[in-house]
């Protein structure tokens, strides 16, 4: 398709349609919803990180006045169904269901064992405390080392290593899968290198940190119809997953998404929904369940901690000639870390003729990991970009020049196989190089780091309708919860196609009964794939308008053209006045009936995104405390439909990456319980931690999309871990392979260095 480059509405910055609701407190999020006669649900969670559930006695709980239903794993038979998400392989509903409510084993501290519905939350919580569980406590595996040891506690006795296991990977194991990608001859590659650098990297388990806890209201009717109001990134997934887990007919389940207070991947799986449904069925009343912050940390889906050893080889002139990596990703209690994406992304920015990357999915007694913004890529990129920085330092080559020298471009092969189409990595790096930040002077104790990164950007299924209303306005309906401003972007697309002002477009997020099937809000896919469906639906509506004008004028279709919001006759010398959309709309009932444009797509995964970040870090040598004093992010967005929201994604992802690099981590005690399950000690960046975050949007059009749009939501979190670590290297001389680079760790390293022969502390790049 040919890409459009001239726009009237796309690229402007209208106020979002749901903005008034959001700044006045009117917008209804998950916990804001209530129904008459509603019960409140509470969950009993495992106090052990690893235990066999021998028996559960719910008699005392059920006898408590006010308790209307109690459910345990006994009430939900296991399933072997899968939901084909379209990404990351089929979602295993047996795992998701067992995670939502344990059957034979408790596999992490906080694992749901039972749920209660009662007339008040206090009674439900009291009842949960009265449930007697007989556990056979087992030793937990809380580290990769323990999970991989010869005498490791085995979480799933039936587990075998999938993908490409090595010969010795047989017998009881915690390795769920292994994969490899390779090219050329890595031994020969390293042999011809003039410089080889190698390092070990460890990143901790971290949480997406959305401010809104999970919340659900379920109402199961006596007629078998179930309605679920829930805060989710994926209403159709909630429907299909609950149907599979609970052995119900998806046709009888309606999922209505609330406004969503952040997700970043963590609100893709179901946690409370199946419990609320079963409690509602058992009690005959609607049931509301809301997690508290403690539960969100302990019992939802953080992302993997990991261990990566990586080696890079380069020629003296900076050409990368060889790479090898061994990656081990924590899956948590069930298989499914982003180990595959990690392997595919690690070297995605560079043309390296010889490489070997192996990656492993390892289960251990931590919460089952969920997606977190470009899952797998930030950690892998932390490793690669730290080593590229080392090479630049040792060869005394400018870090951006070195990256440009090796950067992939259109026609190059991605490390996971296919050729890249038009991509913008070089343009992004050049824009970073040209930015005043790159050449600004540094002060004492400051260091500058640069890093780049990659994400695929998903496609998948989306549906949209655009209906023309009799007052000349239009309504666009899609099925993607709006986390970051997509309704405004969709309205801009409809404006562009129909030629009407964006205030005259009503963007609506519908539910699983009222929207056509649509895949999740994630994967950086909504502006691209759902946007494609919206544009196609608007084109369909426009075509119907054009034909309606032709019909009214009694002209042939090819004698009428649609331009700038009106139909015009092409007959030479014709004195007919153009018919505006408003005019046609006002007479629809008399000229043939309503006009509804519709479209659906299963978009390919095409249009990957690259980002580069520059970070200036100031480190206090007396406390180890560091502060980001300047930050710039550059990203290829293909086409920025609403630039303010593209900038917002860039700034938000950078901020999460900074937190991941400097402070955030799950701290587990010896018994496997998280010690910092609250916002005080799980330390995310606050306003006083950060400077303004400068953004530069580069636009290299994606030919797979009519406007050239590339997904923008995820790649922002990919470069910051290394950008901050490289800045730390510049400020302190210390190459940190372990995150977070929190003050105690930095201070310990600085103190240790005082004992050693002096290493030249550089104060800049």
């Amino acid at each position, binding site marked *: 398709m040919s890409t459009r480059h001239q726009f009237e509405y796309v690229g402007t910055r209208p106020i979002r349609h749901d903005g008034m609701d959001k700044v006045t407190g009117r917008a209804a999020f998950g916990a804001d919803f209530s129904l008459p006669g509603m019960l409140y649900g509470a969950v009993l969670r495992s106090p052990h990180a690893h235990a066999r559930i021998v028996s559960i006695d719910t008699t005392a709980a059920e006898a408590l006045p006010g308790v209307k239903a109690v459910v345990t794993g006994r009430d939900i038979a296991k399933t072997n169904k899968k939901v084909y998400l379209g990404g990351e392989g089929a979602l295993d509903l047996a795992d998701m269901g067992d995670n939502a409510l344990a059957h034979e084993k408790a596999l992490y501290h906080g694992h749901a064992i039972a749920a209660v519905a009662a007339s008040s939350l206090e009674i439900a919580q009291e009842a949960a405390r009265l449930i007697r569980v007989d556990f056979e406590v087992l030793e937990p595996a809380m580290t990769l080392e323990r999970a991989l040891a010869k005498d490791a506690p085995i979480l799933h006795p039936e587990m075998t290593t999938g993908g490409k296991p090595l010969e010795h990977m047989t017998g009881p194991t915690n390795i769920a899968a292994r994969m490899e990608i390779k090219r050329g001859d890595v031994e020969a590659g390293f042999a011809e290198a003039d410089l080889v650098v190698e390092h070990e990297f460890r990143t901790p388990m971290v949480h997406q940190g959305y401010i809104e*806890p999970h919340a659900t209201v379920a109402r199961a009717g006596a007629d078998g119809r179930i309605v679920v109001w829930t805060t989710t990134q994926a209403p159709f997934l909630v429907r299909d997953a609950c149907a599979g887990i609970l052995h119900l007919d998806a046709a009888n389940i309606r999922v209505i998404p609330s406004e969503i207070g952040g997700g970043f991947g963590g609100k893709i799986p179901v946690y409370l929904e199946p419990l609320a449904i079963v409690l509602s069925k058992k009690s005959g009343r609607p049931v509301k369940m809301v997690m508290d912050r403690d539960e969100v940390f302990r019992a939802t889906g953080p992302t993997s901690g990991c261990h990566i050893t990586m080696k890079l080889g380069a020629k003296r002139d900076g050409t990368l000639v060889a790479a090898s990596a061994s990656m081990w990703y924590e899956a948590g209690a069930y298989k499914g870390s982003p180990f595959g994406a990690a392997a595919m992304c690690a070297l995605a920015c560079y043309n390296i003729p010889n490489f070997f990357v192996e990656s492993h999915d390892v289960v251990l007694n931590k919460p089952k990991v969920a997606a977190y913004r470009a899952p797998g890529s930030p950690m892998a990129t932390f490793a690669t970009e730290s080593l590229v920085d080392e090479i630049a330092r040792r060869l005394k080559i400018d870090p951006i020049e070195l990256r440009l020298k090796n950067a992939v471009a259109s026609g190059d092969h991605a490390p996971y196989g296919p050729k890249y189409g038009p991509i913008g990595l070089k343009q992004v790096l050049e824009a970073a190089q040209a930015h005043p930040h790159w050449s600004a002077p540094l002060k004492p104790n400051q260091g500058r780091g640069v890093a780049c990164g990659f994400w695929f950007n998903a496609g998948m299924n989306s549906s949209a309708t655009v209906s023309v209303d009799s007052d000349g306005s239009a309504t666009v309906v899609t099925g993607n919860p709006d986390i970051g401003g997509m309704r405004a972007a969709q309205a801009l697309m409809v404006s562009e196609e129909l030629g009407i002002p964006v205030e005259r477009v009503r963007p609506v997020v519908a539910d699983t009964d009222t929207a056509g099937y649509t895949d999740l809000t994630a994967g950086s896919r909504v502006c691209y794939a759902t946007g494609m469906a919206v544009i196609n639906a608007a084109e369909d509506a426009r075509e119907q308008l054009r034909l309606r004008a032709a019909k009214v004028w009694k002209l042939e279709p090819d004698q009428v053209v649609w331009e700038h919001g009106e139909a015009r006759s092409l007959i030479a010398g014709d004195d007919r006045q153009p018919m505006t959309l408003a005019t046609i709309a006002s007479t629809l009932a008399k000229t043939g009936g309503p006009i509804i444009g519709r479209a659906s797509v299963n978009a390919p995964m095409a249009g990957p995104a690259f980002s580069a970040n520059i970070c200036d870090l100031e480190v206090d040598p007396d406390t180890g405390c560091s502060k980001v004093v300047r930050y710039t992010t550059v990203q290829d967005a293909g086409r920025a439909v609403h630039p*303010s929201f593209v900038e917002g994604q860039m700034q938000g992802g950078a901020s999460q990456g900074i937190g991941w690099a400097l402070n955030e981590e799950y701290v587990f005690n010896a018994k496997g319980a998280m010690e910092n399950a609250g916002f005080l000690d799980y330390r995310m960046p606050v*306003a006083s931690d950060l400077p303004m975050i400068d953004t530069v949007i580069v636009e290299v059009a994606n030919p797979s999309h009519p406007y050239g749009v590339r997904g923008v939501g995820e790649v922002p979190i990919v470069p910051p871990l290394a950008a901050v670590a490289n800045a730390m290297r510049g400020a302190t001389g210390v190459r940190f392979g372990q995150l977070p680079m929190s003050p105690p760790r930095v201070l310990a390293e600085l103190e240790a260095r005082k004992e050693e022969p002096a290493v030249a502390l550089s104060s800049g790049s």
Partner: protein
Amino acid sequence: MVTEVSRIHVDTTINSEPVEFLCDGSQSLLSALRDEVGLTGTKEGCSTGDCGACSILLDGRLVPSCLVLAAEAQGRSVTTIEGIAQDGHLHPVQQQFLQHAALQCGICTPGFIVAAKALLDAIPNPTETEARYWLAGNLCRCTGYDKIIRAVMDAAAETQKATV
């Protein structure tokens, strides 16, 4: 064993209107606002006073309503997000949040707007640093705070111009 606890009757003023509600002795003002009075604009993010999503003004003072007992509202004046706009007119902070696109998911927005109004009431012309430290008690995971701070600084400038 759960025993009967008599509920406390509270007479208070919320957003300039007299309001009465019943609450338990241990119930937070956040819970009372949302569940007894039906004002769900104030949000629960953590219930430990660490995220600021529950920010309200109590007798004009910025507090996390999750750490205030509902009974403490007796005889006092409470301002929530629902009371920030006056007579249908948005407060400059609300208007600037919309202009700057200083919200993405919007869950932290009510808390930020209440906190920012309190900032400008206390410090009409804050520096960027003063604004960042005042708002350090409000967590946002979506925006990285850039557009929020710009919105607050512009609201301050706009208010300054109006009062000159």
